[in-house]
């Protein structure tokens, strides 16, 4: 039996004016377990807290009920006070007789009656409280970044600069990501490579950063502070330590028909390749699908020409297992597949390209060496049409319901750059809305219209029809003039929607990080915790969380880094003790609870139990209290009642219900 003390606060006149506080204290003494009750002017004051401490000592109290303001206000205060007096802080419960009683009721008798009932419910609960201890778990002081684009690089640099070790896992042969494919960046028009490359170099040179390129995350286990990750280092067929990056192998490679991923397939590359000149590491990989040696067993030219002897056809995939305290997802995006948008003739004409392809066309290292030309015949275009929102803001299932956010700005950039470099080219942009929130963004767009004479037409394009003369007939509408437009163009550029990298679904499953219907990773709170996943220890950087441009990505990357640093800076994690626990003897191992846990906190183990003399191995739910946030979803999903929540147990809530209804 508990020895409970009930402390009724007057809160000046806030409570005492409508609730007969001494009556509440008097009634409390009638309740089972209550051995002490008193009322006081301000329980939260130092004198009030001292009263609680004194009573704990004098009356040997094992539980406390404070009838006062909302627990959201002073629960922590009273718990600390109890703890200082040697009582477990979780033996304190609050009866909210201010916000839920005195402030909303005018009739003293009625309010007092209600206050008594609220006090009874709290007493009934405390009777069933048990001391709870926050758990502790260790923190591995190393972070893993999945994805080596600008988001991943920036997060890695920020974490590493704070003094923690960081590993980056990048799927492709080089870090750099989408940003490395861009030509210029809005709204300042500086060269993408010029600002990205130094960051790539800095990351690769940083003593705290280790980069695994051409590698993928294979398996993740563990939990916040203590993840164990298997990384598959795919066979590069080139010895990273020996290779000097001279590039001779690539020149001599006889197989040059593989489409260049970096140039979006607009030209070809050799079978042994580095994706681009500034690649980091500057070590090529052999594309075994394209390599003659791997396909036929003959050739081996690269091996012969390599003076460093770095070519290793026998190399195998390698699994590296490493521990991490925090994981940052920075898996980025791709453009959507345009198969469902046949009306734009993307598959029919080489002169219909996506904006990302235009980036490559405009880039000096691209397939046309930076000359704006038609990919079909190499002729310089005279009329260019840009179509906005291809697959974005789409109401049917062909595209995406969301705004891809970056297209308005990069199209303005493209239009401006073309008009600047090729003043004789007419540029027309079909748009639904032009969205330019952002520092210097609208100014930038207006410059494109006003200074560079880009022709913006509000309206959608219904069809692009390739003409026999090689031109493209664009059928659109001008909503402002309310007329149909037929326009012959030499090139059409599609502002294609972006979507999260398709691999992210697999990664999210491994991390038990939740993901939304569009495959964007879900943040822990849309407003207040935008860079954390609901799964503790998992952070979100860049477009994997939602569409964003480079400055936003970098800002979020920094934010994710700070959150990760905040975690890594701790030696131990204190866990909330109000977590779910499964009664081994009642658990069926049915997996129902696991299915509703948003944090992946429940796993199953085959364990031997002794059930009243019956010894057997059973599949049992095990809650990782470091991951559990205490929502209680599992407790209701569990049919046998094995799963219960500490601090809000079935019996405690039922006791409150009973006390209120009696």
């Amino acid at each position, binding site marked *: 039996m508990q020895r409970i003390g009930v402390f009724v606060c007057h809160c000046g006149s806030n409570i005492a004016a409508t609730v007969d506080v001494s009556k509440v204290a008097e009634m409390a003494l*009638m309740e089972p377990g209550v051995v002490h009750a008193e009322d006081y002017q301000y329980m939260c004051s130092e004198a009030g807290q001292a009263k609680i401490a004194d009573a704990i000592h004098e009356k040997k109290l094992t539980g406390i009920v404070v009838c006062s303001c909302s627990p959201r206000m002073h629960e922590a205060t009273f718990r600390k006070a109890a703890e200082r007096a040697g009582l477990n802080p979780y033996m304190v419960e609050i009866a909210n007789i201010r916000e839920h009683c005195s402030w909303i009721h005018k009739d003293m008798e009625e309010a007092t009656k209600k206050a008594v009932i609220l006090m009874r419910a709290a007493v009934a609960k405390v009777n069933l409280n048990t001391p709870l201890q926050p758990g502790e778990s260790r923190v591995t002081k190393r972070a893993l970044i999945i994805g080596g684009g600008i988001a991943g690089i920036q997060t890695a640099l920020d974490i590493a600069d704070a003094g923690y070790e960081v590993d980056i896992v990048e799927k492709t042969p080089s870090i750099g990501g989408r940003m490395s494919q861009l030509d210029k960046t809005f709204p300042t028009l500086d060269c993408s490579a010029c600002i990205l490359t130094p960051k790539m170099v800095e990351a690769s040179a940083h003593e705290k950063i280790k980069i695994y390129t051409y590698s993928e995350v294979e398996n993740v286990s563990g939990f916040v502070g203590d993840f164990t990750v298997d990384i598959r280092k795919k066979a590069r067929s080139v010895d990273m330590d020996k290779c000097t990056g001279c590039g001779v192998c690539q020149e001599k490679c006889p197989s040059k028909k593989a489409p260049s991923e970096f140039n979006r397939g607009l030209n070809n590359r050799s079978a042994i390749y580095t994706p681009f000149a500034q690649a980091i590491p500057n070590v090529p990989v052999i594309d075994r699908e394209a390599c003659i040696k791997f396909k036929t067993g003959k050739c081996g030219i690269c091996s012969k020409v390599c003076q460093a002897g770095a070519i290793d056809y026998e190399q195998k995939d390698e699994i590296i297992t490493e521990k991490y305290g925090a994981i940052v997802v920075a898996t980025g995006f791709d453009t959507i597949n345009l198969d469902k948008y046949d009306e734009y003739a993307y598959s029919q004409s080489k002169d219909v390209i996506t904006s990302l392809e235009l980036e490559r066309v405009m880039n000096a290292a691209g397939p046309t060496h930076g000359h704006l030309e038609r990919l079909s015949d190499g002729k310089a275009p005279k009329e260019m049409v840009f179509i906005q929102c291809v697959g974005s803001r789409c109401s049917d299932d062909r595209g995406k319901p969301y705004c891809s956010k970056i297209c308005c700005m990069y199209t303005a950039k493209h239009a401006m750059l073309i008009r600047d470099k090729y003043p004789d080219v007419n540029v027309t942009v079909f748009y639904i809305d032009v969205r330019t929130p952002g520092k210097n963004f609208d100014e930038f767009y207006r410059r494109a219209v006003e200074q560079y004479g880009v022709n913006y037409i509000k309206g959608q394009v219904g069809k692009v029809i390739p003409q026999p003369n090689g031109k493209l007939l664009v059928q659109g509408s001008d909503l402002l003039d309310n007329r149909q437009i037929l326009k012959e163009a030499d090139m059409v550029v599609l502002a294609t929607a972006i979507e999260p990298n398709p691999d992210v679904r697999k990664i999210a499953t491994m991390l038990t990080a939740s993901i939304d219907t569009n495959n964007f990773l879900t943040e822990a709170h849309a407003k207040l915790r935008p860079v954390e996943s609901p799964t503790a220890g998992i952070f979100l950087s860049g477009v994997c969380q939602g569409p964003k441009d480079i400055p936003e990505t970098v800002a979020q990357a920094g934010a994710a880094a700070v959150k990760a640093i905040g975690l890594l800076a701790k030696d131990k994690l204190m866990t909330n003790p109000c977590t779910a626990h499964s009664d081994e003897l009642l658990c069926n191992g049915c997996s129902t609870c696991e299915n509703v846990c948003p944090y992946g906190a429940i796993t199953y183990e085959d364990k031997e139990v002794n059930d009243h003399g019956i010894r057997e191995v059973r599949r049992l739910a095990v809650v990782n209290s470091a991951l559990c946030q205490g929502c209680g979803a599992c407790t209701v999903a569990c049919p046998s009642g094995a799963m219960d929540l500490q601090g809000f147990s079935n019996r405690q809530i039922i006791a409150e219900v009973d006390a209120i209804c009696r």
Partner: protein
Amino acid sequence: MYKIAKENLSALFRLIADSQELYLPVKTAGQVNFAAWSEEAEVALDTLKSVKSPKDAFFPQSEGLYTVRREGKKMKVEPEELKSQDFVVFGMKACDVKGLEVLDNVFLADPIDTFYAARREHGTIVALACHEPEESCFCKVFGVDAADPAADVAAWMIGEDLYWKALTEKGEALTKKVKELLSDADETAVEAEKEAIRGIAEKLPYMNLSLDGWNGDALSEKFDDKLWEELYKPCLACGTCTFVCPTCQCYDIKDYNTGNSVSRYRCWDSCMYSDFTMMAHGNNRTSQMQRFRQRFMHKLVYYPANNDGMYSCVGCGRCVEKCPASLNIVKVIKAFQKQGGER
């Protein structure tokens, strides 16, 4: 010997119910169970077996014992009152009546169960002979004569009449009360009915079941038999057999917290349940085999050992009809017999 035309039975029931409670077989939502008579009740005297035995007229499935009420910091104990009003149970069968004899041996022996004793004292039983016994019946095995129930009043339904014969003082008293509705009759028709019933019973498959080897001395021999390991397997561990049984007498005592008071009540328990006879240290019988064995050992061995050889089964056959897994005491007896034969 009296008789009353069936069409006047409702008048009889009304007359009885005027002065005391009357329980009889009533059909509710398709099933016949003993319930208090009312004008609206669909009385079903033709039904051979009520789903539940009528034992809960004397030993209810749950009954209050006492209530503890809190008054400030003090407690007040309010014991439940014993039955003090007379009542009539109409339409029990010979086996059910015999079932009460089994309960009497338990509850009326020292220490006397006052709740049960009060009900027994105030209850008058009008028992009905079984007009058409069925294939699940085996009362004869336990010395019960379905044709001639031994109660306060024995009754027979023959043709359009119900024949009535008081056998005890209580029976006489009840007869006196309802005399105005009864008319004199001779025993010829009843004797013929008895013969007919006994004739039918002879033909029923279970009626000549042998209980050889089952007695109070068979304890270790039966207890240790390997056969139980096989027999219990289909058992679902539900309490159907127990709760329809006229002789099962085990109960549990539980508390119910109403918020303002705690009511202590008892309710039937079943040895088939895993928490049966649960004690602080745990449970005596940890496996379903043990629980299954308990039920039959109790009926056929332990009870006879303590009650001069009387079995605590009366062959009503309710378990035969109601077991969800088609297990029952007859199958158990036969299995041992068969095994004995093969040995």
